Every structure is written in structure tokens, then in C-alpha cells.
């Protein structure tokens, strides 16, 4: 018996050492802010290992996508690993017409997103670093006064977790968090560079109408960033809406007369319509400010000239 007690004391000592780390980073929950809860976010009780499909179905249904965990599972589960990868949650969100954004890993940011009506899908490691138990859940509410986080989690439609416990389990998953939004909506806490990356991913996968909506919203939120107006015009062009694209490029040139990309792309659009004089004049203007894009603009100029003369290739 004394041996058992010794072992238990040893374990207790180990735990006390661990608990020194458990205090972790200070809570970032906004003090004095009112409790918030999105009670209407749907709930799907999780089947074995299917927390990924359940959590994604919850946030997608909230935005009006009619999808169930059972329908998502074949595109999310990895049978040999009994789980779902974060990048596939991101990819399937896009495939279903919603735009995924990563949210900064602090409860203050989560609170801001909830306040805007955006439930937050998070990854937790419920156990320990060296013996992990990964789990996806959806944060639907925060109560700063009671220091509580409210989750759709596993088989519990409303799991209430102490904020410190939540932070500990979340921190062991690098505080990964995402929202899935309709293309015209942007997260409150997102940075311009992140929006650009999200839109580029949409372009790579040829989701042009979604890319257009993202650029349109971003151009309105950050009117000083020419890149979003360029993306908006390019997306219109890619969909064959040439008149609308032309109008958008002209707006961009008027607002940012030093940006060579708009001259290049509008010149290219005009050349496609065999408006050669206008195209040549624009590319000449663009070449004045070409900078690092000189090669591209000179290539466009050559193409316009040979296109006009009918001597390309």
C-alpha cells in the first residue's frame, strides 16, 4: 500500500508541474461585453469520428447551404485515420459555394465574429500533446461575465465549457478557427492579405462568380487597395462580361493612374475586340509606370501590334 501512495504522490507531483503550464496565456475574452449566443445554429449529433462533417454541416446550414454530415462524410473522412483534415474542411466549404476564412486565435476575435452572426468552427486537442484527441466543434456563444464558451460539440447540442479549459484545449491545436461565409460577406477580423489569398484560391479553382463577389466586398471595405478592384475586373473578364470588365478597369485606372496592371488588362480586353488604336494608346500609357511588370506589358504590346497586322506567330 505505501508503494501505491508513493506512486500516487509522484503522479500528483507530475500533475502539479504540468498545471504550472496550464495557466497558459491570459484570457482574451472582452471584459464587460454582454453574453452572446447564436441559438439558431443547427445541430447534428455526431456519428463515430464524424465531428468534422457534423461541425461543417452546422456552419454551412447556418448560411443556407442544404447539406448534412452524412452527405459531407465521403468527401471529408479519411477512413484509415478516422478523421478529417483542416484543409479538406476548407476545400469542401469552397466546393459548396461558401468562402472559408481562418479567424485569429483569440476569444476576442471569436466574440467579434459571433457578434456579426458568424459561428466559428474550431479545432481542439481535448487530451494531451503526446496523446492527442483531436476534435472539431462550433463556437456559437460566449459569456464573458461567466467566463463560458458555448459549443455545438459531438452529441451535445449546447456544451458549456469554462473559458480557461477551452483555451487550454484550443491552444494545443494551435488555436485553429475558421468561419464559412457567403461570397459577398467578409469576416470582421480578417486582414486584406488573407482575403487576397482566399480569392486567389477561388480563381485557381475557377470559381469566378465567388471570386468576383469577394473582390467586390473587399474593394468596398478597403478602397485604397487597388488589388481588389483589379481582381474584381479580372473576374468579370474571366466570365466573358467584357463591357462590365471594361467599366471596372476604367474605374481602377481613374483611381490608381500609376498601376500598370489595369492598363495591361484593359488593353488586352480592347485588343480582343479589335479596338486597336485604343489598345495601343493604353499600353503606351501603362509602359510609363510598368515597373516590375515591364516584361508582361511589352509582351502585350507585341501581341497587339502583331494582332493588328495579322502576323502573330
Amino acid at each position, binding site marked *: 500500500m505505501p508503494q501505491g501512495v508513493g506512486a500516487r504522490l509522484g503522479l500528483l507531483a507530475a500533475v502539479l508541474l504540468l498545471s504550472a503550464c496550464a495557466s497558459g496565456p491570459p484570457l482574451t475574452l472582452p471584459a464587460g461585453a454582454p453574453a452572446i449566443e447564436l441559438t439558431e445554429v443547427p445541430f447534428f449529433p455526431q456519428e463515430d469520428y464524424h465531428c*468534422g462533417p457534423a461541425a461543417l454541416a452546422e456552419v454551412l446550414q447556418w448560411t443556407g447551404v442544404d447539406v448534412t454530415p452524412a452527405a459531407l462524410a465521403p468527401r471529408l473522412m479519411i477512413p484509415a*485515420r478516422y478523421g478529417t483534415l483542416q484543409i479538406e474542411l476548407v476545400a469542401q466549404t469552397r466546393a459548396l459555394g461558401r468562402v472559408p476564412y481562418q479567424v485569429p486565435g483569440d476569444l476576442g476575435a471569436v466574440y467579434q465574429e459571433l457578434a456579426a452572426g458568424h459561428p466559428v468552427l474550431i479545432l481542439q486537442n481535448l487530451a494531451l500533446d503526446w496523446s492527442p484527441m483531436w476534435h472539431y466543434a462550433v463556437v456559437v456563444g460566449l459569456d464573458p461575465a461567466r467566463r463560458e464558451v458555448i459549443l455545438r460539440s459531438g452529441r451535445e447540442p449546447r456544451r458549456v465549457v469554462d473559458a480557461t479549459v477551452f483555451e487550454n484545449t484550443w491552444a494545443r491545436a494551435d488555436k485553429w478557427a475558421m468561419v464559412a461565409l457567403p461570397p459577398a460577406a467578409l469576416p470582421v477580423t480578417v486582414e486584406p492579405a488573407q482575403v487576397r489569398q482566399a480569392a486567389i484560391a477561388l480563381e485557381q479553382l475557377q470559381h469566378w462568380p465567388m471570386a468576383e463577389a469577394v473582390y467586390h466586398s473587399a474593394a468596398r471595405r478597403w478602397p485604397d487597395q487597388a488589388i481588389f478592384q483589379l481582381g474584381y475586373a479580372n473576374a468579370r473578364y474571366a466570365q466573358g462580361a467584357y463591357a462590365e470588365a471594361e467599366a471596372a478597369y476604367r474605374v481602377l485606372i481613374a483611381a490608381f493612374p500609376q498601376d500598370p496592371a489595369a492598363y495591361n488588362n484593359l488593353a488586352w480586353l480592347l485588343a480582343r475586340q479589335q479596338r486597336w488604336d485604343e489598345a495601343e494608346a493604353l499600353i503606351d500609357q501603362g509602359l510609363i509606370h510598368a515597373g516590375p511588370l515591364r516584361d508582361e506589358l511589352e509582351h502585350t504590346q507585341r501581341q497587339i501590334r502583331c494582332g493588328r497586322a495579322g502576323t502573330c506567330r
Partner: protein
Amino acid sequence: MTHWKAMMRRGALILAAVFGFMSVAVPVAQAGMISVERHAATGAEAAAQDKVQAFLARAEVEAQLISLGVDPQLARERAAALSGAELAQAADLADRPAGAGVVGALAFIFVLLLITDIIGLTNVFTFVR
């Protein structure tokens, strides 16, 4: 023998992906346009280089998904849904798939998790709090 088969299968998949890639290529309408990606990048060669790597990675990810039990048709679609940046992350699919998994059944881990749950470090057992 099975290793050899797996290699053959992977090679065949990559070849199939090559032909698929060639037939899709870049839409003609986009040629000559300066994209947001190009405008934001500093090097002109970077984008082209990435394209080749992304497409090789796509075939690789598809093969990995199949070897982990995903239906081949769905594996192709799932790999196709990943962006260039995500493909780079997917290089090792063993990474960390989440599902409320069962922790090793060792009694030691059980007791340890019970205690760490009580002090709020972990959150495995719902009955603790």
C-alpha cells in the same frame, strides 16, 4: 510485391493526372492578363513554377487519399478541390485528422487525463465538470 503494385498504381495516377492537366491547361481568355496573384508576387517565374509543383502534388495527394481508404473517384475530386497553397500543406496527409478518437486505453493515461481534466488542462470527460 504489394509495394511494387502500389508504386505502379501511383505512377499510373500521376500519368493520368498529367494528361488531365494537359487537356485543361490555362483558359485561352486568361492569357496575357495580369492576375492578382502575379501582381502580388515579386518573381515572374514563381507562379509558373508553382503550377507545375501544385499539379504534381495534386496527383500525389490523390494517391495518398486512395491508399488511406478513400474511394478513387472521390479522392480525385477531393484533391482537385485543394488550392495550390493547400496542396503544399497536404504533402503529408498523416498530419492530424480530427475525429473524437479514443485515447489509448492504458489505465495510466486514463488516470492522468482524469486529473488533468479536474485541473482544467484537458477536457476529455464530460462528467468531471
